[in-house]
């Protein structure tokens, strides 16, 4: 079996900044099968053949004339990926035609570069598999991707600043020939330098911030937790009278309006129920 390509993690900005593609693979397995995969190379030296991304679909359009071709815009905290699904990506096309944006999705796909011939380059994803995702998966993907991006930036900054022999550096740090090849291209062909690294640091900080805000507990969540705790404390087996709950929650500094909102929210989430009207019982 030929070796399968890694599903790379890359932010939309770095992906879309790419202008180079190469056909070779430096690994021996690729030479053996005589069919070398195409790679898009990003300015931070990631060789992307396949990628995995989680984001929000914000737009879906059918742009085909004779056949259906679906184009979708998938947003991450740094920018947007473009996804094209045509007649050879039936399952993805069916999926995209049936969703109602905004929707969290995850996508596995191949990196594509289209050059119309006027010097411009369009980068997109041709999906292999696509599925619904959750906000939590998106956050986790952002963190995975930030970690891996930071690692590459670390290597590149070392090579720019330390004026060392590259091959020696790759050997010493146990960097695989595959990763080394991409990084050479970043330095030689893109001339990736301190300015771009600074730009990417700012981008990464933005990405992390976007995750933190969903990670941090909202006041709404805190209020719900207080209500549940009170219910559990006060319940002697027959549930809690709503008026008594209000009194207790007020002790915690919640307004009547907040109590009402939090209570209906925990009710709708099924974390407590109303055995009789005016009585609440935790599950």
């Amino acid at each position, binding site marked *: 079996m030929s070796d399968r390509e890694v*599903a790379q993690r890359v932010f939309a900005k770095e992906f879309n900044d790419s202008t180079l593609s190469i056909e070779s693979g430096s690994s021996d397995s690729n030479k053996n099968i005589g069919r070398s995969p195409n790679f898009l190379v990003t300015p931070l030296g990631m060789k992307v053949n396949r990628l*995995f991304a989680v984001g929000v679909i914000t737009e879906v359009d059918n742009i085909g004339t004779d056949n259906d071709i679906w184009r979708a815009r998938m947003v991450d905290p740094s920018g947007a990926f473009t996804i094209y699904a045509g007649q050879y990506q039936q399952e993805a096309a069916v999926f995209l035609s049936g969703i109602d944006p905004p929707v969290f999705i995850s996508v*596995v796909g191949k990196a594509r570069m289209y050059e119309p011939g006027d010097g411009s380059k369009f980068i997109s994803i041709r999906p292999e598999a696509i599925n619904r*995702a959750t906000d939590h998966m998106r956050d986790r993907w952002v963190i995975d991707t*930030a970690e891996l991006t*930071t690692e590459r930036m670390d290597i590149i*900054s070392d090579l720019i*600043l330390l004026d060392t022999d590259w091959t020696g550096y790759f050997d010493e740090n146990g960097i695989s020939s595959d990763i080394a090849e991409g990084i050479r291209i970043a330095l030689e062909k893109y001339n990736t330098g301190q300015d771009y690294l600074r730009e990417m640091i700012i981008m*990464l900080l933005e990405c*992390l911030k976007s995750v933190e805000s969903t990670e941090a507990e909202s006041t709404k969540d805190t209020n719900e937790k207080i209500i549940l705790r009170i219910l559990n404390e006060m319940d002697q087996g027959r549930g809690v009278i709503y008026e008594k709950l209000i009194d207790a929650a007020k002790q915690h500094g919640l307004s009547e309006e907040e109590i009402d909102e939090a209570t209906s929210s925990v009710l709708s989430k099924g974390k407590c129920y109303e055995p009789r009207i005016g009585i609440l019982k935790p599950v």
Partner: protein
Amino acid sequence: MNEKIAPHIEELTRALGISRNQAQEELEILLNYRVPLDEAKRTVIRKFRYSSGSTLKKIGELSPGLSGIDIKGRIINVKEKNVNVKGKRSVIYSGVIADRTGACPFTSWDDHPLSKGDAVYLKNTITRIWNNRLEINIAKFSSINLLSDNLIPPVEDLLEVLEKKIRDIDISDLFVTSTVVILKMYHRNIKEGDREMTIIEGVIGDETGKLPFISRMMDIDIGDVIRFENASVEVFKGLPSINLDENAEIEILHSKLDGILTFESVSRVPEPTRIADILNKNGVFDAVAIGNIISVRPGSGIINRCPECNRVILKNTCRSHGVVDGIKDMRIKIIIDDGTGPLLVMLDRDISETVYGRSMHVVGEMVKRTMSHDQVVEDIQNALIGKYLAVRGNASRTDFGMILVADSAWFPEDDLSGRIDVIYEKLSLLEAKLNV
């Protein structure tokens, strides 16, 4: 006709060092079948190539797929095995041979007896890959001559056995020295020739990893800290297995002497390994990997197994046992990827049911209703693609690439805010570096 092939017979006789009659006979058989002359010559050459000239090589210079190799070395160890070759019972000898440049496993197929410590001159052998290891094959056409003992250095000078941590032991190691804790073991009765005997199988480990072992020593128990020297490393299901046989020196240490290695510290759930690090090895015993499910492979869902050998069968026909009554089973084959590499993972019925969230019974009904296994694969895809999954089990290299057979699988929680803090720290270091 004879006129025409005479020069070719002459050529074969000279090139292969066989008699004129033999060359003619071999060639004529093929020509009578209307095999073209060029093809016939090729076949005869192939058949007798091994008996033609061979070259002396050092063990360190060997590579797979060589033929006509002569080797001078010393037999480090050897084992007699009874095997079935094409339905015939025969005895083979396998072991390890070494010279000054290295050591290599060998198998002797044609009842060429060998004993431990012999200085030998092997002629006309071939090399191949067996169990992902380079091996010297002593075949029918090979020969073995004993050398006078002083021509080859003694065993101590030939073998440099390294002391290694469990994680660093690879199937390319033939012998190893290490200190470990016995984590699991059970006794098993085996038949060796006509003798019945009991051996111990189990798992040993240190703080870096775990490996299977076998032993004939009976006075060990779970929790013992042992040190072994020169134990041979065998290959079992693509993974290294430590053989604590009579050739190894084994010492049971007082567990208090080695404060770090305790049963408790070694038997924990291993830390997750990056998939790239798993792929870099020939196999990993008891590994944990976490990644996103990026593909559900065909063949997932309901399958049938041969009741004899447990192989997956199609249309109730087993490769080895013919038409059989298949046993229904379920499995899921997925690829997980953590951004460093892809790993093929095999989930058995229990794990599949839990991860997929459907029982085999329901999946079976789905197949009956839709008359299609593809429908099941599609449904599994909808349930699983993109999700984070943690798997624990043994990973080994096969014809289909690296496969991890899961002993357990779960949807992993993660400390996201902790990881965010680490990235912030790295980024501020990076920024400081750029501003110098």
